[in-house]
C-alpha cells in the first residue's frame, strides 16, 4: 500500500478539492498539496472546503450555461474562485502550522479551525448568493427567450417547445446536466432560427433597450430588458422577434 511505504505517485493524485483549489496553490506533482489536504482534515476544515469547492463547481457550470444566454458572470465567478484560493493559501501559510510538530498539537488544529471556519463559510455563502442571482437571471432569460421566440414561425414546433420546457426544468438543478446535454437542448431551441436570414441587427434592439431602460425604474423589469439585449447580442438572428417582444413590454414600462 502506498501509505505504508510513503511512496506517492503524485501524477495520480486527484480529487475535486485537490484539483479545484489545492493544485492552484501547489501545482502538481507536489506532496505539499497532499499534506495540506491532510491538515485540513485534521482541523475539521475539509468539510467546509468541500462545500466551498462544490459551490464553485455549481457556479462554473452556471457560468458556462449563462454564456449561452449571452450573460457573462465570468468575472464574478473568477473573483470567488480567486478569493477561495487566496483564503486557502492564507490558511496554509498561517504561522500556527509552522515551527511546530503539528501532529502533536491538536490545539493548533482547533485554533486554526476557529480562525478560518467562519471565513471559508463566508466565501461559500457569497458564492451561493451569486449562484442564486445567476439562477434568477437564467430563469428570466429562458422565459424571455420563450417569449421572443413566440413571435417566430417556429413557435409551434414541437421539438422547440419541448426543448424550451426542458431548459426551464433543468435550470432548477443545472448540476445534473452535462455541458453536452445542455448544449443539445439549446441548439434545438436556436438551430431552427439560424436558418432564417437576419432582417434586423442587434443595434436596433439596443436602441429600443436604451430608450426603455431610461424610463424603467423597477429592478426586475430592467433585468428583463438586459436579458433581452444580451440574448440578441449573442444570437443576432432573433433581433426582429426581440424587437416585437420589446414592443410588447413597452406599455408596461414605467418610471416610479
Amino acid at each position, binding site marked *: 500500500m502506498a501509505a505504508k511505504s510513503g511512496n506517492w505517485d503524485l501524477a495520480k493524485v*486527484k480529487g475535486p478539492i*485537490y484539483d479545484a483549489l489545492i493544485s492552484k496553490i501547489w501545482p502538481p506533482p507536489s506532496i505539499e498539496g*497532499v499534506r495540506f489536504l491532510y491538515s485540513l*482534515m485534521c482541523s475539521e476544515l475539509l*468539510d467546509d472546503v468541500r462545500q466551498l469547492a462544490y459551490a464553485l463547481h455549481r457556479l462554473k457550470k452556471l457560468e458556462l450555461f449563462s454564456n449561452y444566454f449571452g450573460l457573462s458572470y465570468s468575472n464574478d465567478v473568477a473573483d470567488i474562485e480567486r478569493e477561495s484560493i487566496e483564503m486557502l493559501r492564507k490558511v496554509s501559510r498561517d504561522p500556527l502550522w509552522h515551527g511546530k510538530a503539528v*501532529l502533536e498539537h491538536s490545539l493548533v488544529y482547533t485554533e486554526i479551525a476557529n480562525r478560518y471556519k467562519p471565513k471559508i463559510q463566508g466565501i461559500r455563502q457569497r458564492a451561493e448568493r451569486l449562484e442564486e442571482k445567476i439562477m434568477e437571471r437564467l430563469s428570466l432569460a429562458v422565459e424571455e427567450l420563450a417569449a421572443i421566440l413566440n413571435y417566430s414561425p417556429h413557435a409551434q414546433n414541437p*421539438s422547440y417547445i*419541448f426543448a424550451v420546457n426542458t431548459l426551464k*426544468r433543468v435550470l432548477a438543478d443545472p448540476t445534473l446536466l452535462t455541458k453536452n446535454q445542455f448544449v443539445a437542448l439549446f441548439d434545438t431551441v436556436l438551430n431552427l432560427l439560424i436558418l432564417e436570414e437576419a432582417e434586423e441587427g442587434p443595434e436596433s434592439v439596443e436602441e429600443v433597450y436604451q430608450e426603455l431602460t431610461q424610463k424603467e425604474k423597477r429592478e426586475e423589469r430592467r433585468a428583463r430588458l438586459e436579458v433581452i439585449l444580451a440574448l440578441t447580442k449573442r444570437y443576432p438572428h432573433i433581433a426582429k422577434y426581440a424587437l416585437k417582444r420589446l414592443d410588447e413590454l413597452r406599455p408596461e414600462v414605467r418610471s416610479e
Partner: protein
Amino acid sequence: MSVSSGESILREELVKRGHTPLEIARFIKVLRRDGLLEDLLNALMRLFVVYKLASVVDIEEVEDVEEQYRMLINLLSKMCGDSAYVRPILRRRVNEYKRAVNEILDDLNESIERSITSGLNKLEDIRSKALEELAEVREAKEVIRKLKSIPLRRTRSPEEIVRNVEAFEQLLIVVKELEKKKEVYERSKKLLASIERLIGIIEEKYKEAELVGVKLSYVEDYLLAARYCLAEHVNSKSVPSLHCLVNAERMLSGVLEDVERALKYGHKLIELKAAISDLKAECMSALRRLELDEIADLMRFVGSELPFLPIELVSGVEIEKLRLFLDVAEDLKNGLDELRLELSFAREVNKESLMVKIYPLLKSGLSSVFIKGLAEELRRLRLASLGVEDLTRLYSVWRRTTLDMLRKKGRLKINELTFIPSSWRKRFLEYLAEEESIMIEGDTIILASESLKKIMLLKRRVEALINLVEALSILKSVKPSLLDDLKKVAERLRLLEVSVKLGEDKRKELEEIEKMLDSILISMSAYEDVLYETR
C-alpha cells in the same frame, strides 16, 4: 546511613518515651559495653530499608516488623529506666535483659529480612511489568535501559539497597507518564487499523458505485487525505495525535455511509429504470395493439426526466437528490404498472381518459423534482400541456424530417440531426431503424434502397476478400493480379455508391462489377483447392 544515624533514631524513640538525654547517654554506654548496641543499630538500619521499600510498594510483613520493633523499643525503654540494669553496682538483671533483647532482635531481623526480600521481589515484578508495558512506546528506550541497569537483587548493604530503591522510585514516576502514552499508542494503533480498514471498504464500494454509474469524485479527496494520514503516522517518530486520527476515522465513517447510500440508490435506480423501460415497452405494444400509435409514440418520453447514468457527484449533498429521483422513478413505475394492467385487459379505450392517465406519468419528474420554485403555476401548466400535446407529434415530426432529409441527401451524419437533442438522437435512430429501411454506419445514416443494400453487401464481401487474399499472399505465391482485380472492384464500388438512385448506366456498371467479382471468386476457389492439397 551511618551508625550514628541509627543511634539518633534510638535516642529519638527514647526521648518520646520520656527519658532524659542524660539517662539515654548512660543507657547507650551500657548497651555498648554489653555488646548489644551494634546489633541494635544494624537492625535499625535495616529497618530503615524496610520503611523505604514500604513507601514504594505494599509489604505485608511490615506489620510484624512494626510490632516487633514496638516490643523492642518498649523493652529498651524499660531497660533505660531500670536502675537494676543501668546502675553499675546493681546489674542484677543484665543477663535476663540481654536474652530478651537478643530474642526480640532475632525475630525482628528475621521479619526485616523477609520484608526486604518480599519488597524487592515486588519491585522486580513492577520492573518486568513496566518493561513489558513500555516495549511499544517509542520514547521509552532510555527509561527501559535505566530500569534494566538497577541491580535490585544482587545488592546486600542497606545503603546500596536504599540508593537503588530511591533511583527506582524516580524512574517509576517517568514510567507512569510513559504508560499514559502507551494508552495513546494502543488507541492510535486501533484507530490506524480502523482507518486502514475504512479506506479499504470505501475504495471497494466506491469502485462498485462507479460501476453502477454513480461516481462520487469527492471521496477521492478524503481517501487522499486519509492515506497521507496513515503514511504520516506510520513513519512518524513522535507520539501520534489522537485528535487527528479520531477526526480522520469519523470523517471516513461519514464518507463510507455516503458511499453506501449512493451505492444503494444507484442499484435501486438502475433496477427501477430497467423496470420502467420494460413496463414502457409492454404499454407501448398494448397501445399499438389498440391502434393508438400516437399515444404509443408519446410513451417513449416517459421517464426521460430521470438522471442520465453515469452521474458524477462532486459533493455528498447531491446524494439526497438521487433519493428524490428514486421517489420519482418509484411513482413512475407504479403508474406504468397500473396503466399496463388496465391496457392488457382493455379491448377499447377512451383516448381522452387514457391521456388523463398518461399525463401525470409524463409530468411525474417535473412535478416532484424540477418544477419546484420555477415559473408560476398557471404558466407552468399551460406550457406543460403544450409540451404534452406536442410530444405526441414529436416522434412523428422527427421521423418525417429525418426521412425527408435522407431522401434529399441520400446520407446524413448523425450530428446533422440538430433538431433532435443529441442525447436522444441515437435512441431515436434505433427506433427508426426498426421501422424504416435505414442503415446506420458509424455516425452516418443511409436510406437503404434495394440497390444500395446490394452495394453495401458487395462492398462488405469485397473488403473481406481483399483481406483474405492479402493473408493468402503471405502464405502462398498468389497471383498479384488477383489482389489488383479485387482492389479495382473495390474502387469501382466506392465510386458507385456515391449516388443513391441508380440510373441505367449505373445498374449496368453494378452488373459488371458483380461479374468481375464472380470471375475472381472462381479463380479464388481454384486457389483454395491448391491450398487444401498442399496442406
